[in-house]
């Protein structure tokens, strides 16, 4: 086969392969949707993180504004320390609060960020003061059973 045709085919093949990798990275993977641009890092302590995982989304008003980078355990306060990476174009007041929520009934868990009223904005390295841990389904059911048990007893006691 002619050298030029050979080069053409191999060139087309290599370009098609690279396009396939780009397609996988941008359209199938999440390379296009985050990690673009500057981020700043804040920490938040939770009494219970439930099933939160690294890379879980951080949403404010339902919009993804960042990702969970790291989850650690503080042996002094016995709390989970979650490191959040937020996009720099989204600035939040210093007294914003974080809560761990579940998307849908059995869906993945994410952190919901509620903006506060402070005039100062969060800077890199700050810690969120107001946090609310994950709701554990078992505790909820236990509480519900306990409460309903109480209610049944009350009329009997009277």
């Amino acid at each position, binding site marked *: 086969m002619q050298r030029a045709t*050979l080069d053409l085919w*191999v060139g087309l093949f290599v370009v098609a392969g690279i396009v*396939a990798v780009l*397609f996988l*990275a941008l*359209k*199938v993977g999440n390379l296009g949707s985050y990690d673009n641009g500057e981020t700043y890092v804040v920490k938040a302590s939770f009494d219970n993180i439930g099933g939160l995982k690294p890379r879980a*989304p951080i949403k404010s008003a339902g919009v993804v504004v960042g990702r969970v980078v790291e989850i650690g355990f503080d042996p002094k306060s016995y709390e989970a320390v979650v490191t959040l990476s937020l996009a720099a174009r989204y600035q939040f007041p210093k007294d914003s609060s974080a809560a761990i929520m579940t998307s849908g009934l059995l869906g993945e868990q994410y952190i919901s960020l509620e903006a506060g009223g402070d005039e100062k904005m969060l800077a890199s390295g700050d810690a969120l003061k107001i946090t609310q841990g994950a709701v554990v389904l078992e505790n909820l059911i236990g509480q519900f059973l306990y409460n309903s048990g109480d209610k049944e007893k009350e009329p009997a006691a009277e």
Partner: protein
Amino acid sequence: MIDSLLEHIRGIGRRSIDRVWRMGVAARFFMLVLLHSGPSFRRFHLIIREIFTAGVLSLIIILVSGLFVGMVLGLQGYETLQTYGAEESLGVLVSLSLVRELGPVVAALLFASRAGSAITAEIGLMKATEQIAAMEMMAVDPIARVVAPRFWGAVISMPLLAALFSAMGVFGGYLVGVVLIGVDEGSFWSQMQAAVDFKEDILNGVIKSVVFGIAITIIALFEGYDAPPTAEGVSRATTRTVVTSSLAILGLDFVLTAFMFRGV
């Protein structure tokens, strides 16, 4: 009685020693190929020719298989997910299974039978017709001139083919899921994008396909180079290439998966 038993055990020992010895020779052959790769990069058109025979000529089978594997995944996945009302997760199922496992593994199996066997047969025949001996006579290094370009051509082709297979499979899943069955297009793509991580999933898939490419090619080259110079020897070596490299792919895949996806 004792004697025949001992003879059996000796047989096992002989075969084990033979296997280990052959693996050692293959490893030395691999090092030899790496050491003699320099000249083939200086004459890059040799590698381009091999990318053509190993990569471009495998395109049709890889693309068609990828498309059909994706379409079947779409159909079967929909059947199961639909019972849980989770048919929007079809994109996640199709893309994760393709990018992590099926893309690299099935593309490598196809590549081993399409390109690996051809490499073995070609080199085995070159040896049988004494072309390699002739090269040595002319002071042309056959490893640098014949073996190393084939090695690099195939190793470069393999990850590209695996990526094309995965991309084609995702497209096949899209075709069946969204176009044919009517899963919502927006959630098909967005759930997929939320679940597939570039580093964790796609990059690991690419690493797998590179490792498979190296394993297949070195097995194919070694079997060809080591084949007895007869018609029967070449045919046996070709069969062995396909069998050994398929087993190597599956074994390596298990080891790599265990290292890569142990959970967070």
